[in-house]
């Protein structure tokens, strides 16, 4: 049995602890140890952004972070984006604008877009496209995603 390390972290606002092997990525820990399967694995090498989570307020690819690095950090995953049963404006707008097809890229896009709108609620189309360059989608052609993000940015809840 490989040695496992005890990690304490804040996950979606809750203080939790877990055990993991140093070689496990944060993505593996989230999905396999903690059962949070909203965060997706696309490429597992940093290129696609499907595994995006917020770590201490910055958006990172959780496949390029080790689980042990979460010690003392604040992590937010797609599961932490909605407010109870109330969808985040981004989630609502992705539905309304049909900004997804297979949906594998969607949690990553929403988490990454949330990081943008949290810091720049007035981001324009160019800024949104640039910011989301690290998120790949094989289905939508991106346009509907960008429209959904821009629509969410116009909603009061986000700009407030």
């Amino acid at each position, binding site marked *: 049995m490989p040695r496992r390390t005890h990690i304490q972290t804040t996950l979606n606002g809750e203080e939790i602890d877990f055990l993991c092997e140093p070689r496990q*990525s944060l993505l593996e820990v989230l999905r396999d140890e903690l059962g949070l399967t909203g965060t997706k694995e696309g490429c597992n090498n*940093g290129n696609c952004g499907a595994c995006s989570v917020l770590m201490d307020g910055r958006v990172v690819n959780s496949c390029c972070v080790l689980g042990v690095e979460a010690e003392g950090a604040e992590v937010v995953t797609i599961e932490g984006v909605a407010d109870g049963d109330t969808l985040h404006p981004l989630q609502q707008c992705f539905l309304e604008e049909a900004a997804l097809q297979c949906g594998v890229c969607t949690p990553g896009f929403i988490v990454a877009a949330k990081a943008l709108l949290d810091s720049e609620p007035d981001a324009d189309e160019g800024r949104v496209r640039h910011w989301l360059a690290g998120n790949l989608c094989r289905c939508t052609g991106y346009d509907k995603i960008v429209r959904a993000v821009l629509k969410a940015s116009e909603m009061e809840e986000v700009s407030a």
Partner: protein
Amino acid sequence: MKEIDYLAPSSLGEAYAALQNGKTSAFLAGGTDIIVQLREGRKEVDQLIDVKHIPELVSYAWTDDGGLVIGASVPFAEIYEDDEIVRRLPCVIDCATLVGGIQIQSRACFGGNIGNSGPAADTVPALIALGATLTLGSADGARDLPLEDFFTGPGQNVLGPGELIITVNIPPQPANSGSFFHRFIPRNEMDIAVVNVGARIDLDAGGERIEGARISVGAVAPVPLFVAAAGDALVGETPTEDSFARAADIAAEAATPITDMRGSIAQRVHLTRVLTYRALDRALERAREA
């Protein structure tokens, strides 16, 4: 990934001790190169030493004479969000904003880009153009060395087994100096450079004559190149299309690229000439604004 130990030293002393425990090590900064390399079996080590808890590596500061000392592990996002760096050293921003997308820039850093020592590393030609040096540290003490002397081959460098990069040091830039970095990739974002070029131009007080120039080219040789001869050819010249074209020719002659899926030898040599010329032109603009 095979089983691995994880250490997170909170001081340089602890890091040096970890390097001497008899195990093979790699450093973990942003992890955007090393985690994937370990997972894919392209590299194997006994332990990862996380360098992000060492104070010297995660902070940066201006020196009294106007230089900038950047801890090896400061993420690019932290650098380009600093308005003073944006204003005073735009060439640093040119490269820091180009590495990967937002997710990568949240974590990736100069120490990792340099430590990985890839021939196409985007921050390197920019930093060489600026005249950057590295401060390397080990249990035996610290040493400084020009960045261009760091690399010995693809993925290889002069670091001793007990040594790490502490800081990247950008010296104060002359009064009428400007620098610029850019790269060619087949799309707008997120790719490895086919060729990348950093250039710096120092003008005399009147802004008429070139007093110094530094040109560095990446992805055209086993290591990033500092083409001293190309810069030297500009000294004493006026900044004209002719003098820039001559310098660009010298840079292209220094290139010894390979053909791979990103570009052919002929294309890379051509790009070296074109990108060098344009980098000089943009560096000149910045020198005139300085």
